[in-house]
């Protein structure tokens, strides 16, 4: 089946009747996934958004419950659930894989994060294959295919004036029922592409296993500012902190993104900090991406989206690190 580009507006209008539809677009100068209004303002042709779509499942700030003392002097606790049916339309391979990683963290190994799960169960993922790549894209070196997101509910591939449409999950198949009026028979020509930036991941994890005390961390972290940019633009970074705010007799407990690059992240009671300098913090970030996550979940936590490469203010570059590791004899 194909979806003619001229029908996209109508399709998304239809989907918007029963769900919040998120599309890539520019909002006040920032490219991100934001609620759909009209097809004209979508930026489906941009290569990737500046902010990843992770906040659809894992908001930067998420209220967990309210609590306090009510008028009768009794304590109350109100769990909060702001999950709603959502569609993400136009997600790319890298970001789709980041959802796979977050699913691992939030839903497996005997731990189920109910806030994440509530949102995840209500999310329909519609991927669009990339016909262009940015200079910083390297997903195909991370074992992905820019034109194929096997875990997306629906996969679109872009031709000249239409997208091919394939449901890949039961949820996707069910969703396609309501797409029918906008689809037609046909096929599309898709140009084959590959990433311009290549890295070789062979042996990288094994070497990192032996590189905890390697001088590279000191060297690489010298220029790092220890800001949160790389972790906050990363689609797979998923660390959070839980905190609360109280006003008179009412309070709210919430969680919010945290960054392993911040000094406070590992600060313990009694003032001990096991990662006292940016050397340990930067090492942790890269180890988590390229080594520790693999130990636990059998895949790397870097999906090759290139956002950190693009946005780091001092050009700390994970792809350069991977190259360097390749050259080390450890």
């Amino acid at each position, binding site marked *: 089946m194909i979806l003619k580009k001229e029908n996209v507006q109508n399709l998304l209008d239809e989907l918007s009747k029963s769900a919040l539809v998120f599309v890539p677009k520019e909002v*006040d*100068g*920032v490219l991100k996934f934001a609620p759909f209004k009209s097809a004209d303002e979508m930026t489906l042709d941009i290569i990737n958004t*500046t*902010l990843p779509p992770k906040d659809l499942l894992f908001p*930067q*700030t998420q209220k967990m419950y309210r609590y306090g003392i009510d008028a009768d002097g009794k304590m109350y606790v109100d769990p909060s659930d702001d999950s709603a049916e959502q569609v993400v339309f136009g997600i790319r391979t890298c970001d789709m894989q980041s959802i796979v990683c977050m699913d691992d963290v939030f839903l497996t190994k005997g731990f189920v994060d109910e806030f994440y799960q509530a949102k995840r169960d209500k999310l329909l993922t519609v991927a669009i294959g990339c016909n262009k790549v940015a*200079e*910083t894209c390297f997903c195909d070196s991370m074992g992905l295919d820019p034109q194929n997101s096997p875990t997306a509910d629906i996969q679109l591939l872009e031709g000249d004036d239409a997208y091919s449409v394939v449901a890949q999950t039961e949820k996707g198949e069910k969703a396609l029922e309501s797409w029918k009026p906008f689809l037609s028979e046909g096929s599309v020509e898709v140009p084959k592409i590959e990433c311009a*930036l290549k890295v070789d991941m062979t042996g990288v994890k094994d070497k990192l296993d032996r590189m905890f005390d390697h001088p590279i961390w000191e*060297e690489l972290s*010298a*220029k790092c*500012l*220890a*800001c*949160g*940019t790389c972790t*906050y*633009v990363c689609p797979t970074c998923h660390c959070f*902190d839980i*905190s609360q*705010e109280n006003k008179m007799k009412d309070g709210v407990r*919430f969680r*919010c*993104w945290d*960054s392993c690059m*911040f*000094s*406070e992240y590992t*600060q313990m009671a009694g003032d001990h900090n096991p990662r006292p300098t940016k050397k340990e913090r930067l090492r942790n970030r890269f180890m988590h991406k390229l080594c520790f996550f693999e130990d636990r979940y059998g895949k790397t936590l870097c999906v090759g989206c290139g956002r950190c*490469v693009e*946005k780091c*203010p*001092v*050009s*700390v*570059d994970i*792809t*350069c690190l991977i190259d360097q590791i390749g050259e080390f004899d450890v």
Partner: protein
Amino acid sequence: MSAIEDKIRIRTKELLESGEVAEFIGWGKGRFENQTSPLFIKDPSRVDELVYNDYCVNTLGKYAYQMKGDGKIALCVRGCDARAINRMLSDKALNREDVYLLGIPCEGMRDRKTNEVLKKCQECRHHNPVVYDELLGEEVEFPLPENRFVEVEAIEQMSTQERADYFDTVFSKCIRCYACRDVCPCCTCNQCFVDQREADWQGKQSNIPENRFFGLTRAFHVGDRCIECGECERVCPMGLPLMSLNRKLIKDMNTLFGEFEAGMGDEGPDVLRTYKLDDVEEFM
């Protein structure tokens, strides 16, 4: 340009070999065309990795602070880097004998993708280093940029409601990565107010009120010390117009206390830490 690059390499080699300095901070190549990145060198055999070209966008001054105590370090200073050094000297964050400064007159740096001169360089008022131990080139002459308060004046012209809406939009974009703070040569507090969890000044939620609180407090904390290097605005991944906040304070201080530019010398006191009997006190 490459003449300066050659001189940087030669002098770095000499300084490291003679043991006069323990480490050198300059720029090296990045992965992509016209990309550079700060480069730290201890080994004199590596000086050929140093580059100097139109794309050395990072201001290096603040690194001198982070490396304090590691022995004397040498670094390249253009107008902005040099004023950053002065900033830290007058804040007593650095001692003059901690650093050896290779001055470079600067013609402005360019964005590697658009090839346009960076906004911070278009707005720069001091292309020549204002402090150095040796100068690696001829001083350059640059006309002062036109009115640097254009953005501030545009905001001042807004109605109260327009201004509130404008700042809501601005702060709705902040992701609180704190890159603006981490890059700033004024931000040398042992512990930033943001990280003082027990005092709990800065709430952790990311929303407009908390983001605004951070953004305004940051601007006030650098207040009379901001050297207008423009690094905070350059590094902000969300493109917040941070210089308009810094310059609003500078403009008001100029009006209230007379023209003053931070970072031009290594002695305080700066405007807001000077008390004079005839200071304006119209709000008291």
